[in-house]
């Protein structure tokens, strides 16, 4: 069956539009944040280990079920060392340093720029020693 030229043009246009749409959708999906829920219960993180791709925004939804405040501070060893002796009573200025008040939920979006492993820790007195430590493993490639 032979199609007339206008019909062929129309089909070609539709095909291009479809391919473009699929590609655009794929690009959009790759930049959408990955959602990772973390629950704090009895002063422990659950999960205590997560894996995320480098360069992709990750939204951590952190739910504190405890009747006491907690923190979620993610970073390298040097950052945690500073926080162990830090005096900031409340964190909300940086997406990697969050205070989650008792029985509340907080969301924070972080894009990890390099592969590796970081820890998330609650630096309120005694909490790290009690086991409020988790690990983020950042894998290469999106």
């Amino acid at each position, binding site marked *: 069956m032979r199609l007339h030229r206008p019909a062929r043009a129309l089909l070609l246009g539709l095909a291009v539009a479809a391919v473009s749409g699929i590609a655009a959708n794929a690009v959009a999906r790759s930049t959408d944040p990955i959602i990772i829920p973390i629950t704090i219960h009895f*002063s422990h993180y659950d999960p205590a280990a997560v894996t995320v791709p480098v360069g992709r925004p990750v939204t951590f939804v952190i739910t504190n079920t405890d*009747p006491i405040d907690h923190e979620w501070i993610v970073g390298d060893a040097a950052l945690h060392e500073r926080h162990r002796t830090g005096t900031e*009573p409340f964190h909300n200025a940086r997406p990697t340093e969050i205070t989650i008040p*008792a029985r509340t939920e907080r969301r924070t979006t972080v894009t990890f720029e390099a592969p590796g492993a970081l820890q998330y820790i609650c630096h309120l*007195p*005694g909490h790290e020693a009690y086991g*409020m430590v988790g690990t983020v493993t950042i894998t290469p490639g999106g």
Partner: protein
Amino acid sequence: MRRSPLDQHDRPRRWTRLLLGVPAAAMAVFLAATPALACGGLIGPNGAVNLLQTTTFAGYHDGVEHYVTAFQFAGGGGQFGSITPLPAVPTSVEKGGDWTLQRLVRETSPLFARDAAIASPAASAGAVELMKVKIDALDITVLKGGAADIGTWATAHGFRLPPDAPEVLDFYAQRSPIFLAAAFDADAAKARGQQIGDGTPVHITIPTKNPWVPLRILALGKTGGETVQADVYLLTDRAPALLPVPNGSNGIRLDVSETASDSLLSDLRSDRGMSWIPSSGWLTKVAVDGEAAQIGYDLAVDASGARRPSAIDAGLAMPSTAPLSTPVDVGRIFLALAFVGMGLIGVMLIGRSNSGGRPVAS
């Protein structure tokens, strides 16, 4: 003015100091209302509870537990506090007698027993405030609520809870939702002229089927290797059965188990609020001396003679208020069914191959 039986025993003044210094604050010290935490010995600057020896008396007679503990003034300023789990709703919280705890220490301490033999023949929003009492520099509130309710109430009232508090509160609230919160105002204590080491005894009267002494709360805020030390005195109508059995290797040790002496009973009876002391009884002293990680239980006491202390009261089992419901995992069910199906097919294939697929050797 009444004279303490200890004074009557011509006790040296230094001895008084020592005894007042030893009995400690509370069953559970875990707050500091002031962020600086420079407020004496109960909680250190890192939020940890300092080691203190605690002395508690739990007497049980006619279905009523009489619980006497002391809150010690440890110097400094600001506020400290504690939360004590209770087995049931108390009918009264009042100032305890001045010498009950000291007299019990004297009765069971080898050194002082020898002296005695010479000197004497003998929500929070969700928490419900059930009772509020002020005793000297102590503000005491009896609360009813779940773990989250009590934790929220405590936080809202300036208590700084250590990280293990949510789990420990839940451990207690599942068995008894009654707690006693005590806030100790060190500035008020100083203004009252209280000296470091002076204790404020508190007498809690609790109708209950069996006495029950919270021990796990003593380890609150401590790391697993830290030592927990406390002396628990029991006075019951007959020799009690205890759970866990104090065997020394589990963090608790049975130091004394004997008929209470007439002189002890008489001395205790003469103290404030202690007229309930019966004419005879059995004295038990359990020493808590172990690492915090060991003290994951309470002391259940069966004083009825049945010798069946409750595993639930001891915290070794939890009450089942509702049948255990496990969420149905549809994926696992399908997986299991798939395995069963594959197994059946395998059995059928083997059966077919044995019967017709291959000649049977004969």
